[in-house]
């Protein structure tokens, strides 16, 4: 929280994107979160990703639930559509909005409490239906907004700020997303923008349900020794399986990659992800392998990060429902009520 407005002056040599915007044009109003909160860094990464993707802000809908994390859409993309839903209910609003207008870019921002505690049921259905969107969980292991109670992602055995030990098993949202059929799954850390920004870019360009679990330390309630979501703990146990560069659809691959070391994944829109493998055997297209690897490394106390699974040609909700290409909210009376002749024909087909 600061009391002064962020000055509108910017660096005189700031780069502009294809739309003529600087990254400053993707900001929202000034953050009211605690100084140092990981969530602010994720907002900055989203800003950078949208800037680099040349996204027109008015084409984005940002949706969230309740929590410090869910407040953050106010702090980026000030010119986009936004919806703050009831606690844990963002997935149903997201599904509805996406059905009504398939043309917007959907960005869900939630917390570990909002998603894994109160919102777990909604989250599961959103993912398994394959809604075309990017879902980011800003995961700090606590309910930041309500003063630091353990959330459902807090690791068993980790210690609260006041010394209590968490006795409950934790939910690994990445494992859940894999199990539920998400076609793009990754994990990252608010303190590593080099990894996070390209992941967000690739997720936004992905067709289908893209899920990102971003560990985001709560400096007020969960950044102490004994926490497994603190800056120090995450830095010590961060095990990245790959590094990625995002190459947007239109541009050819400019960098020369050493053959073998890099895998190029092409997404449906032609954009490419250049994956530099860090763990030789890790295969980003193997859902079961990924799940096993995750569980195994988690048991060893390590936090696996990077792009963990991607299915570039996955299907999404609209494909499955066979909806028309035109957004439903733009259909007029003529298309929606084709008249009694059409009804008769339809009824006849059911006889």
């Amino acid at each position, binding site marked *: 929280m600061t009391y002064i407005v962020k000055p509108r002056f*910017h660096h005189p040599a700031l780069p502009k994107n294809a739309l003529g915007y600087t990254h400053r044009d993707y900001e929202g109003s000034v953050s009211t979160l605690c100084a140092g909160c990981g969530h602010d860094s994720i907002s900055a990464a989203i800003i950078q990703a949208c800037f680099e993707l040349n996204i027109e802000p008015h084409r984005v809908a940002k949706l969230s639930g309740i929590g410090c994390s869910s407040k953050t859409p106010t702090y980026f993309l000030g010119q986009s559509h936004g919806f703050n839903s009831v606690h844990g209910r963002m997935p149903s609003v997201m599904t509805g909005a996406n059905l009504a207008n398939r043309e917007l870019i959907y960005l869900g921002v939630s917390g570990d409490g909002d998603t894994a505690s109160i919102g777990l049921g909604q989250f599961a259905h959103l993912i398994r239906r394959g809604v075309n969107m990017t879902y980011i969980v800003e995961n700090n292991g606590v309910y930041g907004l309500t003063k630091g109670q353990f959330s459902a992602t807090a690791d068993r055995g980790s210690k609260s700020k006041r010394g209590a030990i968490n006795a409950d098993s934790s939910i690994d949202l990445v494992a859940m997303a894999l199990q539920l059929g998400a076609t793009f799954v990754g994990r990252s850390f608010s303190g590593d923008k080099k990894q996070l920004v390209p992941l967000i870019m690739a997720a936004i360009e992905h067709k289908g349900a893209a899920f990102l679990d971003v560990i985001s330390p709560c400096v007020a309630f969960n950044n102490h020794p004994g926490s497994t979501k603190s800056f120090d703990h995450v830095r010590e146990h961060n095990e990245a399986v790959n590094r990625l560069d995002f190459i947007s659809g239109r541009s050819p691959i400019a960098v020369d990659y050493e053959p073998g070391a890099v895998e190029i994944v092409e997404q449906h829109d032609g954009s490419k992800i250049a994956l530099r493998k860090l763990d030789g055997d890790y295969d980003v297209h193997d859902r079961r392998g990924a799940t096993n690897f995750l569980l195994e490394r988690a048991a060893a106390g390590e936090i696996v990060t990077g792009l963990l699974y991607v299915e570039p040609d996955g299907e999404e909700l609209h494909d499955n429902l066979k909806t028309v290409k035109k957004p439903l909210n733009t259909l007029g009376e003529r298309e929606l009520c084709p008249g009694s002749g059409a009804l008769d024909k339809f009824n006849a087909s059911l006889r």
Partner: protein
Amino acid sequence: MKPTDIRDPNYFHKVVDCQWACPAHTPVPEYIRLIAAGRYSDAYLINWKSNVFPGILGRTCDRPCEPACRRGRVEKEPVAICRLKRVAADYKDDITARLPKPVEKKNGKRIVCVGGGPASLAVARDLAPLGYDITVLDQDPQAGGMMRTQIPKFRLPDSVIDEECGYILDLGVAFAGGKRVDSLKALLAENWDAIFVGCGAPRGRDLDIPGRKEAAKNIHIGIDWLSSVSFGHTTKIGKRVIVLGGGNTAMDCCRSSLRLGGEDVQVVVRSGFEEMKASPWEKEDAMHEGIPIHNYLVPKEFTHENGKLTGVVFEHVKAEKDAKGRRKLVPSGEPDRHFPCDDVLVAVGQENSFPWIERDIGIDFDEWGMPKVDERTFRSTHPKVFFGGDAAFGPKNIIWAVAHGHEAAVSIDKLLNGEDIGHRPLPAVEVVSQKMGIHEWSYDNDIAGDKRYRVPLRDKVVALKDIRAEVELGYDDALAFKEAQRCLNCDVQTVFESKLCIECDACVDICPMDCITFTPNGEEAELRTRLTAPAHNLAQDLYVVNELKTGRVMVKDEDVCLHCGLCAERCPTGAWDMQKTLIEMTQAGTACRSRA
């Protein structure tokens, strides 16, 4: 890169661009904040201490601080540092009680200053309160030098000169007006403990082209003519006036002519308009009064009839690059042009001249006839004779003369205390954290978006009628406040403590100017390519701090930092702090002497 040593007084001094650029190193942001707080007397005294003539400089300074001002890199125009100085002088209370008192019992050391311009007066101001017996000799009746004799009254009223020279003479300095020194040898024989030569650069360059002699009656050397105007000897000029030259003297000549009967006054310069020596604002002021400036015209001949000037013939030139890439003026081939006129003012340069200094008394001169003067101590090759101001290294300006005066005073003080004058004192640095609360600072860190405010002017018709009517009216207090708020407080430094940093990126994310980067270390040139925002301004330092937990370094590009303190407000651990660095140059007195 090596980690930055912020204990080096020059490091943060350089960040305060204006103060670093000011020859006298005036603590600019400190006085600007005092103006914003309405504490004009305090603001005045800070100026008085470092630049001696706040009221005069607030109207006439060449303001090297303004092109350096960080605000000019953040938006279009710098803070009006100079005219804010005038505000302090205009609205202060009677400050005489706060000035040093004449010393009752002198220390027995006698110093003489030749010339009563700003350089000598600065020496006198610094040394008199220490007990030195100071005598200032000038051929003119009053103290002030060219500030009084050259700068037109419509830019600098006598009352301001009287007041500020008075503060110095009231320290018990003996001023002997109307006393020209004709022999330095004779002066040396008078056994002064030290001699300071502040005689300026008193000779105006002439133009030796056909017709010069024949039409001499109506051809005047600019600076001679201006001093004659100042003294009231010259009160009229012809209707049609041509001013030759593109410097500040030319601008004063043309504007003065306009007030003494000139109706058709034109300036003609050899070079291009852009290359003119005059400051942009001096050109602007002349053009605002309707004076045309013609460029690329080289005077060829004065035309005359029956011993009376009739005009000037000019050759057209254009600028070309020669084989070595140097710019040269070559004839353009267009026909010559004749400008008819009644009077010509020649303002094509100014020179030193030392006819009164014998060449056999131990003072060496170089091939250009300039005395050999040490650039740090201002001592000549004679152990007791010092030079400063325009006399030392050729014509400059008032603030340089003052800066030279301070340094010469330090040298003289050390010399007469038996010290090595080559050993120069460091500035005094005071560092104070500005933190008052979680997001409260003892300076106003909110950044004003306002554009530079214009200084109100006297109505043109009224101004042109009276050569003594000051053109600029100065800011009123409301405008002064708004202009003062544009200052970015560059002396409130961002100070980083790596031991406290948890590398959460909060400062990187909030910084409106993208100044901050956490990255692996490297050589400066390469490191500059890896920063959050382009770091092309090599004149501005990178602040590098190491010993972060991840082994990276924190790099802050000082270039366009707004000193808004948001990095410190967003830092959860207090690794960033905003600390005010008050840097004051050490002047003559005990502080400048070594403790040994």
